[in-house]
């Protein structure tokens, strides 16, 4: 065996074992020590990160990719399912990013959750989630991918509902699962189609075989799956609701890793998609709609976590647009850079929320720049990176996406929507920074503001470095698969920056207007639309459950089961027989005349029948 694949696969195996060991140790019956979370889990993730760098370097240096097929799990007739891992560009780059972000978030969580009696369990859940995510990104088999896919979904259910005493948290957890399950129908559709037509769930074989088929139907299934998991328009409301979970959960699951799983699925299967213009157009329009709609919703939210959540949704829409542009690698780049600054934004907001006595409303914040300078600086860096400020992480991916968008011949409607959403990004990012860090404090005087804790500073610092240099590092080391457009008109080139600056200026103007109210009774139609999330949850979350629950009660239980099936079946037999039985038994009251006459008539009747 050559040295490179040997090193590659063994370091990957070591990484997986390192991650798996703490989970195994929780199976021991003796209770875990209070320090277990920090000592065991965080260290494991940290070590795993360093182990995972080795394959990454090998990949960068020698272009080493490997597919590890080990165990023939099951086979029926001609259909085999093996355990096989795929370590290619996507998984080799994504795993270190995910581990790095998780490492920081775990350290932060040890501070954020320090008063929680079940901190060890919390860390265990996060670690299991991470394992599921790694299974998802490394899967070379749709069944294996499905395991990771559902695994992250269920862990997200547990983690959103972490504070299970609260009804809101439980509702949000259920909501997340139900929305994801709608997406899963799509994945099941794709799997069923692929199994019947191609007789294999191995991704490599699917790529080869998909050339011979019209794959529009399974692709629509996959897009539906991605819509559910990555909270695209139509199935988006679960993502902001998921902010009921603890902030580290929001940072890890609902910004940097799990929600990109849907996009990742499409990236992973993009060779299937690249020649199918229907699917690409659906992606493009869906993504553009999502990015604009959720950016619009983000504009008027007051909950700091909700704003960041909607911005995540908006960025996911942008990634979907990129897939629609047939640039999966750019979408992947955006996943990687986005993970750093979005996780950092969440950690900063978590730190601020804790500092202000669990206050999440940005109207009751302010002046944090003086009180928590480090956190607010990083919040600003994160917001700038999100808006695509040149040479921060977001710039490298976002600018490239907008360039690709501008220089393509595709749907102008989607293009305009995306550009508008880009300028909205600047507006809501500025709004967060403006309300949280600038001006005078608007919170209670006795807030326990203290960011001078290594468990707060270090993770945010690490992620801040990531937000500063990750884009540069990744773009300068990865060769793009598609040839980027090298020449273009300056206006096209600068479009992304221009709309961002335009948004920024508009936002500043609007911000200055807040203190100079011109109208006594302002017309707030648009504000209501944005603030009420486009009235989407109010319509769908009432209408659909009501329909289904009515079906369950009025139709299924009362009409069909209790009336038709019961009344016409058993009860009808009953009510038919009881009158006859009671008539016959009522006749027999011991009087001889009745018996004799009955005997007589029966005999006559029998004789008549016999004789005729």
């Amino acid at each position, binding site marked *: 065996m050559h040295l490179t694949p040997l090193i590659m696969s063994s370091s990957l195996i070591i990484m997986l074992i390192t991650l798996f060991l703490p989970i195994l140790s929780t199976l021991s019956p003796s209770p875990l020590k209070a320090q277990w979370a920090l000592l065991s889990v965080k260290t494991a993730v940290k070590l795993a990160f360093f182990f995972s760098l080795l394959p990454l370097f090998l990949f960068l240096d020698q272009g080493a990719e490997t597919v590890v097929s080990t165990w023939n*799990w*099951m*086979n*029926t*007739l001609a259909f085999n399912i093996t355990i096989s891992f795929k370590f290619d560009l996507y998984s080799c780059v994504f795993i270190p990013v995910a581990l790095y972000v998780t490492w920081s978030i775990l350290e932060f969580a040890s501070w954020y959750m320090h008063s929680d009696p079940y901190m060890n369990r919390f860390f265990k859940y996060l670690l299991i989630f991470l394992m599921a995510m790694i299974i998802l990104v490394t899967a070379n088999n749709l*069944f294996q991918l*499905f*395991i990771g*896919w*559902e*695994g992250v979904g*269920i862990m997200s*259910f547990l983690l959103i*509902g972490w504070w*299970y*005493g609260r*009804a809101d948290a*439980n509702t949000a*957890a*259920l909501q997340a*699962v*139900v929305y994801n*399950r*709608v997406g*899963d*129908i799509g994945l*099941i*559709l794709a*799997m*069923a*189609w692929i*199994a*019947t037509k191609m007789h294999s769930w191995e991704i490599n074989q699917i790529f080869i075989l998909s050339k011979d088929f019209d794959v529009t*139907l399974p692709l629509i299934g996959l897009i539906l799956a991605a819509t559910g998991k990555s909270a695209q328009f139509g199935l988006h409301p679960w993502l902001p609701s998921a902010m009921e979970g603890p902030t580290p959960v929001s940072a890890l699951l609902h910004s940097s890793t799990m929600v990109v799983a849907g996009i990742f699925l499409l990236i992973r299967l993009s060779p299937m998609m690249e020649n199918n213009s229907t699917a690409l157009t659906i992606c493009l329009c869906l993504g553009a709609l999502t990015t604009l709609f959720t950016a619009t919703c983000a504009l008027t939210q007051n909950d700091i976590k909700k704003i960041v959540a909607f911005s995540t949704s908006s960025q996911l829409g942008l990634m979907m647009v990129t897939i629609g542009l047939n640039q999966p690698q750019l979408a992947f780049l955006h996943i990687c850079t986005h993970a750093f600054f979005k996780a950092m934004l969440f950690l900063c907001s978590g730190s601020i929320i804790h500092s202000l006595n669990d206050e999440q409303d940005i109207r009751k914040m302010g002046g944090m720049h003086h009180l928590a300078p480090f956190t607010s600086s990083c919040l600003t860096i994160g917001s700038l990176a999100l808006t695509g400020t040149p040479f921060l992480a977001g710039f490298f991916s976002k600018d490239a996406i907008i360039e690709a968008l501008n220089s393509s011949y595709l749907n102008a409607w989607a293009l305009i929507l995306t550009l508008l959403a880009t300028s909205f990004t600047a507006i809501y990012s500025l709004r967060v920074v403006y309300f949280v860090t600038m001006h005078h404090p608007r919170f209670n005087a006795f807030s326990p503001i203290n960011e001078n804790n290594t468990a707060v500073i270090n993770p945010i610092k690490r992620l801040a470095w990531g937000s500063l240099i990750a884009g540069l590092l990744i773009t300068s080391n990865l060769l793009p698969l598609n040839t980027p457009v090298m020449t273009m008109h300056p206006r096209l080139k600068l479009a992304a920056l221009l709309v961002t600056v335009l948004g920024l200026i508009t936002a500043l103007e609007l911000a200055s207007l807040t203190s100079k109210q011109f109208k006594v009774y302002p017309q707030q139609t648009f504000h209501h639309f944005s603030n009420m999330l486009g009235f989407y949850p109010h319509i769908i979350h009432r209408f659909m459950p009501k329909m*289904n*629950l009515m*079906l*369950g*009660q009025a*139709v*299924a*239980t009362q009409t*069909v*089961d209790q009336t038709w*099936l*019961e009344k016409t*079946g*058993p009860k009808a037999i009953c009510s038919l027989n009881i009158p006859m039985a009671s008539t016959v038994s009522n006749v027999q009251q011991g009087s001889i005349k009745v018996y004799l006459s009955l005997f007589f008539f029966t005999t006559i009747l029998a004789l008549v029948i016999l004789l005729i």
Partner: protein
Amino acid sequence: MLKILIPSMFMLLTTWTSPFKQLWSTILMYSFLVATLSLTWLAMPTDTGWFYINNYMAYDPLSSPLLVLTCWLLPLMIIASQNHLAVEPENRQRTYISLLISLQIFLILAFSATEMIMFYVMFEATLIPTLIIITRWGNQMERLNAGTYFLFYTLAGSLPLLVALLIYHSSMGSLSYLSLTSLPLTCSNLYADKLWWMACLLAFLVKMPLYGVHLWLPKAHVEAPIAGSMVLAAVLLKLGGYGMMRIMIILDPLTKELSYPFIILALWGVIMTGSICLRQTDLKSLIAYSSVSHMGLVAAGILIQTPWGFTGALILMIAHGLTSSALFCLANTNYERTHSRTIILARGLQMVLPLMATWWFLASLANLALPPLPNLMGEIMIITSLFNWSFYTLILTGLGTLITASYSLYMFLLTQRGPIPHHLILLEPSHTREHLLLALHLLPLLLLIAKPELVWGWTA
């Protein structure tokens, strides 16, 4: 085969001769030994065909998982019933155990029969102990009604089967499984042939139960004591699926078109019973309706008659047997503490019984078919084979999975999460017995992930 059957019969003797003090432990030990021994059935010396044939009994890859499930369930039923029978006098406890054991004997005979009439007789014989368990040891007055429903639905469905089998026998001269495949009935499309086809399947469709003839199941489940619910959900319903798979061979030429309405009815039932689950107030009834919903999928998988359909149906039957039995056990732990089946009276239990919450969670996940549990393997195989038949079935099956996930997690959230009501502060702690019971349900399920071929039937 006799290695298991004769010890099972002698268990009856042990029940009546062992000293009362050691009654439960002896029988438990004994039945576990039988169950362990029965695991040898899973080893298939060759790829296909029948094993351990004697004159009347044999097993093949289709029946062995169900046989093992039958044997595995007896000790679990005994563990589960221990608490609620503790207040009964000695001879009634012995009677109860004897009934459970006789049920196992009948089930072994039914699953291992090599001949249709033998299967039919045993199929009917299982009604007797079950009926006695439900109507004698149920809790409410409604148990009598439930017993009537149970008996009459099943009997009314299965008497036509007897006639149909006799017709077949009189024209073919044999009802042995071993020769069924080589004796194809020349079916013309006569009206009488269609009736015969219907008669052959009706018994099993009622037993499954198919949506439309399912009313007896929720009633029986709700009123039965825990062991009755367990065996009903885990094994007795599977008699229907098993019988269908067996008889499908001789029905082959007719099934193609005639089965369409039943497939649709079964799938429609998945959605309807799922919606009923969303509105249930009664925990046991919820689990019972979820059984109907899952078995609808099984019925559709069998009627579609492809290798994947059969395999998926068998996997789902085994997985559902363990899962729903586990759920009934969990419902029973609540029932023994709160003395009510109403869901909203037992909320927020995670606070009081944290380890139980873990079992609830695992069982709910199994019920909603989380990959890679065998439940999912079964469901996805059935969904795929249905999809292969018609694209539109995916709308029904997909909605079915969505609703299943909703009510399973709703059940979990409602019973385990949230603040604990004040009347539940003084609860009995969970027993080791109960944890053992649930571990023995869920561990086989988890272990099956590693080697699902064991329950794959003919295509393994």
